[in-house]
């Protein structure tokens, strides 16, 4: 395909005047300066353009479309703030809406973003849109000011903009945005990108703003994927093979076809063994006139499933497999200095083993998707974190032109990384293609829990050496796990470690002898990205181990961390969240959290106060966790005090919300969550055994203290989670003397 004829010119995307006299700006702009370094983003090629829709109506309302999917992380508010800041809009009059997926052919003929990157993952939305969306807002302002200048017959430079009003100070005359929107739409767009405000001039960025779509949510009007409809659509549920990579030995669907309302039954093929996932499993889609009929039809299916190549896999067996692997020699993925000599010369050494189970994303809205596959094009409507991935997967599988596939992202009822995968979208498309009608696919909770891409399970082995002066001289981190990179296209097993170990993480560069070693474990469980991916595991083990070392050495755990982190300096950080890690900023949040949380105070019997900090995807978070553990081992987490440094703050209210979410997600996961595998299938199917935390276990107090240092902004969707589990384990140790090395905590505190 030759892309040049499709490439949008500057003029044709820049301005559209509607008959209603509104100004619509969709500004294609140069790429932002910071690279998208997470794997999910790299899958989609370079970010060739950044922009946004801004629609200004004559009634003074401003509609701003946010490009990235909203799944609870607050981009429906924070991203429009970037636009509105430069636009000079009254944010109270701003409405926001989800932008549909917009792709185009780039100058090189490859598919690229039409206006802006449109994925939600890696806490990257604010980082990726920081410059482009402000330029989009400034461009719209420039047009409005030019129109007002013409009307007032003054020089544009004499006009000021505030709260949706353009004012000529010398004459006291003014025009509102709405009044000049129509005229602005008829103007020639500026050739040069407009000047952006200096940070000192921000009046909206940095102020606490409430979620824009709160009223729709509390009145039940917000539209999630599960609420969407297309005229004439059918409903589908799928009976999937519960065994990893299994297939049906026999299928009898005659009773299912007799269920009133059942329209058809469609086989969905399993992906190739060990090959990339499209759909996840073999399945039989029951298509019916209603969701209830589809469910009844599925119940009437009679299928004998072969137990597949992992029929012997169990949770206990997998843990033993990891332990066995750790007794050998793994793949050395970082090797600074001479680790063996350093351990031989050490005055003292420490080691610890830690275990993390598989866990499920369990977004409260189960997977669902509407697909309408026609000869002339395809419509996809649903909750997706990376609608472009869904577009590409459907295009490749059905052999269609990507631009003929329209994707509308609804609000997501949670994501947590699950909806980075597009398996459910492809299932809906394959089913629609087979029945040649629009189909709405719904997963039940059991479908969701048994066909997740789980957070990888694994066992960690850490060792540390100190010399006689107390200097940390050597550190090893050895991990045996089932990598989430398993079954990625064209990725050799020797690259699997990259998803599970971040080799520039602390204490890299701060210790002379460092070895990081990986063991790729065999498991049939599908794996994927789970909020803050490997940082959850690595923060838990490193920050727990530091506490163990401090106790063994008779040092204060905070003081040990601070002296190991040392002075502020810029250290290279190659993986996502880089290019720089500054240990001084991590020390800064530790100090602030410790001060605000009164870390180190003498605690009464049965109480403990733990601290931990971690650098996640460009953000620095420390937490102080307070616990009480009674004589029966009943745990109560009473308070969490956090300090956050994510550079320039866009919406401090949103930062606090995400911190609170990270705390509760981290606590919920640490308390009880594990996916159990028996006989090559996931046992847990619902919240009766996979016990997400309820309000009774949630901390009554959560404090968020923000360091706004004016640095480049980082995101906040994931950073709040990693420090929680280790700070909790450290608090439990202080309260009880019991060291939590295996998650979840479960009943380990019971006598």
């Amino acid at each position: 395909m030759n892309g040049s004829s499709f490439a949008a010119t500057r003029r044709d995307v820049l301005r559209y005047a509607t008959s209603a006299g509104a100004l619509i700006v969709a500004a294609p702009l140069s790429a932002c300066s910071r690279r998208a370094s997470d794997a999910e983003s790299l899958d989609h090629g370079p970010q060739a353009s950044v922009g946004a829709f801004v629609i200004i109506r004559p009634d003074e309302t401003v509609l701003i479309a946010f490009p990235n999917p909203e799944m609870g992380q607050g981009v429906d508010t924070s991203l429009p703030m970037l636009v509105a800041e430069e636009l000079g809009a009254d944010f109270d009059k701003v409405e926001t809406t989800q932008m549909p997926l917009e792709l185009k052919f780039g100058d090189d003929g490859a598919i690229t973003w039409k206006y802006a990157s449109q994925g939600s993952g890696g806490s990257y939305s604010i980082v990726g849109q920081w410059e482009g969306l402000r330029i989009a807002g400034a461009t719209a302002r420039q047009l409005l000011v030019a129109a007002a200048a013409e009307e007032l017959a003054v020089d544009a430079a004499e006009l000021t903009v505030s709260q949706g009003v353009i004012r000529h100070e010398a004459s006291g005359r003014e025009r509102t945005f709405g009044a000049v929107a129509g005229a602005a739409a008829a103007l020639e767009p500026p050739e040069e990108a407009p000047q952006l405000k200096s940070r000192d001039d921000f009046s909206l960025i940095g102020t606490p703003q409430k979620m824009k779509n709160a009223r729709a949510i509390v009145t039940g009007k917000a539209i999630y994927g599960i609420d969407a409809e297309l005229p004439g659509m059918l409903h589908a549920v799928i009976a999937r093979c519960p065994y990893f990579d299994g297939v049906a030995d026999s299928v009898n669907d005659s009773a299912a076809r007799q269920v009133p309302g059942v329209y058809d039954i469609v086989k969905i093929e399993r992906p190739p063994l060990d090959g990339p996932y499209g759909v996840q499993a073999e399945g039989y889609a029951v298509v019916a006139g209603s969701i209830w009929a589809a469910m009844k039809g599925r119940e009437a299916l009679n299928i004998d499933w072969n137990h597949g190549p992992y029929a012997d896999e169990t949770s206990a067996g997998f843990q033993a497999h990891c332990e066995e692997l750790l007794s050998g020699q793994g793949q050395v993925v970082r090797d600074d200095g001479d680790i063996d000599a350093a351990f031989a010369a050490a005055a003292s050494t420490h080691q610890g083993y830690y275990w993390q189970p598989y866990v499920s994303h369990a977004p409260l809205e189960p997977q669902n998707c509407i697909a309408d596959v026609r000869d002339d094009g395809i419509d996809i409507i649903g909750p997706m974190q990376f609608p472009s991935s869904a577009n590409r997967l459907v295009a490749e599988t059905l052999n269609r032109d990507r631009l003929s596939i329209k994707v509308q992202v609804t609000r997501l009822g949670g994501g947590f990384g699950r909806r980075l995968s597009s398996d459910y979208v492809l299932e809906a498309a394959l089913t629609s293609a087979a029945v040649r009608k629009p189909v709405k696919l719904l997963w039940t909770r059991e479908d969701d829990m048994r066909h997740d891409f789980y957070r990888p399970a694994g066992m960690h082995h850490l060792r540390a050496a100190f010399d006689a002066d107390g200097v940390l001289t050597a550190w090893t981190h050895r991990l045996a796990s089932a990598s989430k990179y398993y079954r990625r296209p064209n990725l050799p097993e020797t690259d699997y470690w990259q998803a599970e170990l971040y080799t520039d993480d602390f204490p890299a560069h701060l210790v002379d002898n460092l070895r990081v070693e990986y063991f790729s474990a065999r498991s049939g469980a599908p794996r994927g990205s789970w909020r803050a991916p490997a940082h959850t595991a690595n923060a838990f083990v490193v920050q727990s181990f530091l506490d163990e070392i401090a106790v063994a050495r008779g040092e204060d755990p905070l003081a040990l961390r601070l002296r190991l982190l040392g002075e502020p300096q810029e250290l290279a950080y190659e993986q996502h969240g880089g290019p720089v890690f500054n240990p001084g900023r991590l020390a800064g949040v530790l100090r602030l959290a410790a001060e605000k949380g009164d870390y180190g105070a003498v605690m009464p019997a049965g109480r403990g106060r733990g601290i931990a900090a971690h650098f996640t995807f460009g953000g620095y978070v420390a937490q102080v966790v307070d616990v009480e553990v009674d004589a029966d081992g009943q745990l109560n987490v009473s308070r969490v005090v956090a300090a956050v440094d994510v550079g320039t703050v866009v919406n401090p209210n949103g930062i606090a919300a995400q911190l609170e979410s990270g705390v509760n997600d981290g606590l919920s996961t640490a308390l009880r969550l594990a996916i159990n595998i028996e006989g090559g299938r996931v046992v847990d199917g619902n919240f009766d055994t996979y016990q997400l935390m309820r309000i009774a276990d949630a901390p009554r107090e959560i404090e968020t203290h923000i360091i706004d240092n004016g640095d480049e902004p980082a995101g906040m969707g994931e950073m709040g989670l990693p420090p929680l589990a280790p700070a909790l384990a450290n608090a439990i140790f202080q309260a009880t003397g019991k060291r939590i090395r295996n998650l979840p905590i479960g009943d380990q505190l019971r006598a």
Partner: protein
Amino acid sequence: MVRMKINGEWRDFSGDEDMPLLWYLREDAGLKGAKFGCGIAQCGACTVHVDGQATRSCVLPVSAVDGASITTIEGLSDGETLHPVQQAWVDEDVAQCGYCQAGQIMAVAAMLEETPNPSDEDIDQQLTNICRCGTYYRLRKAVHHAAALRKEDR
């Protein structure tokens, strides 16, 4: 045939009476505020009021609500004026993804009828709806705030 009053309006249903009320509300009555989360009455995303009681509609067959009066999130507010619990949710900025919040709000609205001034312990015992985003800290504040708003209304 099942007759039920939904948000003040009588409706007749003549289909499979084993179907859970949730699917009737969402698919037949077009009231999509109540959500499907688990299907086994664990998470509470489907909570509606049946004769004033907070009820998990995902396991309640339509046959069980013959003659009952049902209120969904769409019928909770008084026109454009939000119910105190909805208002408290906006004031405290509780929602994140928001998927569970209609169920949470319905559960809290019913709880405050029985327990107008709940302690934290009351909240812990009576509120068992799951929020996967973990909005519990603001949710708790919003319950207390809603209790105060209700008193002002009287």
